[in-house]
């Protein structure tokens, strides 16, 4: 049997079983089915690794049926497992398995337990659809599907209307991006007459397409990517998406779904590589996002919000990498980020679980002793994301910085600043949560507890991965050859990636700077939050206030887009539809009434008048006939 059927089918099966029968099955069975489905997909993907890794860029294809046939354009339900998609599949199913396992405990008291697992499985299915599709349509299916699952999972606790709003916001912002993607697809159809990756990319690589067309297509696709990967200007949904259960945040809003935009760009490498203008835009959008989100992250007090802005910022890093043409690097960062961000979110979830749904870091502190495992793994995650030497994040971030350095010095400086901010806000989070005094008066310190084993086990696995993940693409200065991931993806790219020829001295300087950033950030955070033991105030003023309120972007959007739209809606309905158009159309009624009233005067019942009218009419008719005949 084709492995793709199994990889896709298992999560789908899990979804159907859990969705239909879930409320009749015991929770442990539901959890087991959900986890096993994803684990099964993971195992099958692993088993097929060897086939894919054949030197001649082997892919496994699966054509199911024709979805639509319009004239010559044939849209198929077809999948392919190649080097890129198996990589993504492994990340998705691997981390997905851990998070499923974790969720069994985390969600065990929730009445919607089976629903949760059904949604999660469905999400995995859609995400796999996204990465396994062999044409843009399949990707779009997955693309929208994960958005839908994200909507369902953010609004999982549906009784809370704020959560509902956050879910809607996420879905709608995603839809804005989707429109871009859809339009991009239409352009592709009109240009290449197909949506199949192989056809489209071969034609692009052949170089017959005009530059402006490529730029237009790539820009539209990038709009889609900004929606899904929370870049400026469509990033505000992601922090709000933290309304969902924490495992969801870890899986969807950190490790997998938000990286779909990067997957898309890497998948269309040949397209993006040929549109320099788009690359430049991507670079600066990514950079802006990275810096801005890092700044906002400095002032957030909700443990998940900090991580959310951190995610936005890290996604910005990835786009910067894409903008410089370092596709492998971006994917590398996707991978390592998936490890440590999932770890951090799950750690945060563990903290929240242990503190009985307290999320405000001002009400935490000193949890180190109570939650040793969580503390340790969280620290590893923090170190990894901050770029502690030789941990996974160090390598991937350093590669990005190097790539940017070669590309544009200003961008490099800004990105370094962003990396510094990353270290600061991560350690701020870490110190405030695990060090210092316990500060919650509503929940006794004694009641704080470590999480059960099936929650800490994923933490430990992810911690290990965060440490060693860098090995996936070791830099040339350590191994004197290109990294593993670079070589792995090499056959996939129709246009070879540029390899940064950089002399070793410069490289060592850059590494030194990276280390220096880490140390500086660490020291600043330590100084403020450990030595001075500062506790963030409720409200900040000035710059702090600006950051705490996220640059007022939400308010700005509300004022500029939402409110005017609502007002327009009311105006259109009440005034335009209700009054003006109606007056135009039904204004004829009073006119008819007036004519009727005049007519009534004529029709006064007087026979002589009628006779006179008749005679006049006869004269007129005959006269007209005489004159014109």
């Amino acid at each position, binding site marked *: 049997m084709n492995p793709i059927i199994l990889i896709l089918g298992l999560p789908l099966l899990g979804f159907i079983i859990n969705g239909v029968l879930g409320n009749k099955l015991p929770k442990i069975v539901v959890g087991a089915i959900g986890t096993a489905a994803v684990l099964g997909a993971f195992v099958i993907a692993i088993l097929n690794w060897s086939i894919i890794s054949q030197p001649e860029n082997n892919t496994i294809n699966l054509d199911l049926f024709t979805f639509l046939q319009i004239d010559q354009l044939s849209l198929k339900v077809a999948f392919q497992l190649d080097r890129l998609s198996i990589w993504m599949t492994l990340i998705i199913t691997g981390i997905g398995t851990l998070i499923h396992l974790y969720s069994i405990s985390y969600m065990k008291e929730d009445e919607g337990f089976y629903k949760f697992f059904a949604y999660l499985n469905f999400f995995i299915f859609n995400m796999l659809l996204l990465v396994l599709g062999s044409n843009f349509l399949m990707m779009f299916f997955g693309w929208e599907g994960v958005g839908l699952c994200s909507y369902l999972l953010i609004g999982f606790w549906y009784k809370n209307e704020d959560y509902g709003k956050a879910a809607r916001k996420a879905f709608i912002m995603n839809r804005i991006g989707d429109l871009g993607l859809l339009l991009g697809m239409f352009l592709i159809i009109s240009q290449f007459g197909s949506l199949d990756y192989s056809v489209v990319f071969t034609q692009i690589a052949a170089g017959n397409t005009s530059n402006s067309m490529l730029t237009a297509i790539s820009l539209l696709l990038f709009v889609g990517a900004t929606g899904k990967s929370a870049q400026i200007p469509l990033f505000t949904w992601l922090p709000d998406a933290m309304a969902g259960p924490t495992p969801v945040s870890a899986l969807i809003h950190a490790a997998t779904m938000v990286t779909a935009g990067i997957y898309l760009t890497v998948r269309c490498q040949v397209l993006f590589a040929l549109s320099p203008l788009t690359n430049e835009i991507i670079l600066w959008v990514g950079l802006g996002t990275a810096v801005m989100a890092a700044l906002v992250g400095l002032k957030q007090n909700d443990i998940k919000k900090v991580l959310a802005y951190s995610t936005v910022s890290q996604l910005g890093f990835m786009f910067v990498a894409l903008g410089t043409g370092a596709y492998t690097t971006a994917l590398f960062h996707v991978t390592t980020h998936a490890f440590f961000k999932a770890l951090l979110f799950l750690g945060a979830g563990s903290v929240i679980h242990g503190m009985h749904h307290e999320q405000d870091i001002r009400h935490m502190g000193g949890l180190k002793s109570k939650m040793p495992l969580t503390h340790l793994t969280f620290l590893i995650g923090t170190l990894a994301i901050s770029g502690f030497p030789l941990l996974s994040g160090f390598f991937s971030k350093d590669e990005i910085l190097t790539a940017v350095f070669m590309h544009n010095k200003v961008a490099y400086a800004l990105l370094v600043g962003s990396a510094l901010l990353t270290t600061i806000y991560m350690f701020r989070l870490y110190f405030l949560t695990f060090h210092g005094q316990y500060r919650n008066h509503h929940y006794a310190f004694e009641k704080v507890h470590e999480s059960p084993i099936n929650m800490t086990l994923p933490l430990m696995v992810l911690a290990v991965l965060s440490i060693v993940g860098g090995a996936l693409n070791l830099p040339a200065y350590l191994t004197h050859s290109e990294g593993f991931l670079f070589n792995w993806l090499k056959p996939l790219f129709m246009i070879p990636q540029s390899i940064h020829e950089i002399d070793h001295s410069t490289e060592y300087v850059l590494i030194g700077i990276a280390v220096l950033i880490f140390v500086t950030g660490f020291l600043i955070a330590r100084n403020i939050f450990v030595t001075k033991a500062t506790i963030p105030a409720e409200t900040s003023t000035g710059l702090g206030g600006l950051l705490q309120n996220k640059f007022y972007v939400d308010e700005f959007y509300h004022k500029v887009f939402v409110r005017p739209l609502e007002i327009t809606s009311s105006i259109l309905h009440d005034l335009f539809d209700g009054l003006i158009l109606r007056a135009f159309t039904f204004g004829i009624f009073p006119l008819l009434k007036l004519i009727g009233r005049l007519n009534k005067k004529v029709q006064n019942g007087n026979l002589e008048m009628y006779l006179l009218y008749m*005679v006049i009419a*006869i*004269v007129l008719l005959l006269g007209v*006939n*005489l004159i014109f*005949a």
Partner: protein
Amino acid sequence: MYRKDKFGIIKTSKMSEISSLPLQFLILSFITILSALYVVTSKNPVHSVLALILTFFSISAHYILLNAQFLAIVNLMVYAGAIMVLFLFVLMLLNLSKESEPIKSNLWGIAASIAAGMVLITLTAAFQKSGIAVMPAPSEGIGLVKNLGRVLMTEYLVPFELSGILFISAMVGAVLLGKRDKNSEELVDLNNNNNA
């Protein structure tokens, strides 16, 4: 204005036409129009009726001129005889022989004259335009009862019978209308009040 007679002579003036008209036609037309005018202008309805009878007599004379002898007789019998007597009878019955009609305003008179005049002009203009100007060809025996009876009983049999039905229904209608209604007393009061 230029029209040909049957000899192809172009006649250019109305005067010459009129001068060549037969005296009988002129006299009869004169009587007809004058009496018709009297019908519409006389204040007394009885005078109107008498003038109308005179008109019908002159029209009958016209019929004779037109070789429609039977028609002339019938016209005298039906119109001048039966119908006009009926009118007179009703006038007597309702006692309307006197000057009872309220005079209409001048405005109405002007309006009516203009309207009638307009019709006259338009019709004349229409006939002018149609350009019919050929002399009637004399023919014998068409208007005699023998010929008419044959046509009436062959070609026009169905309309003939139908007109019989029409007469019956008119008769029944007239009788029904003329019958005094039981409720009419109230109606009289009502209308009197209204008009008072």
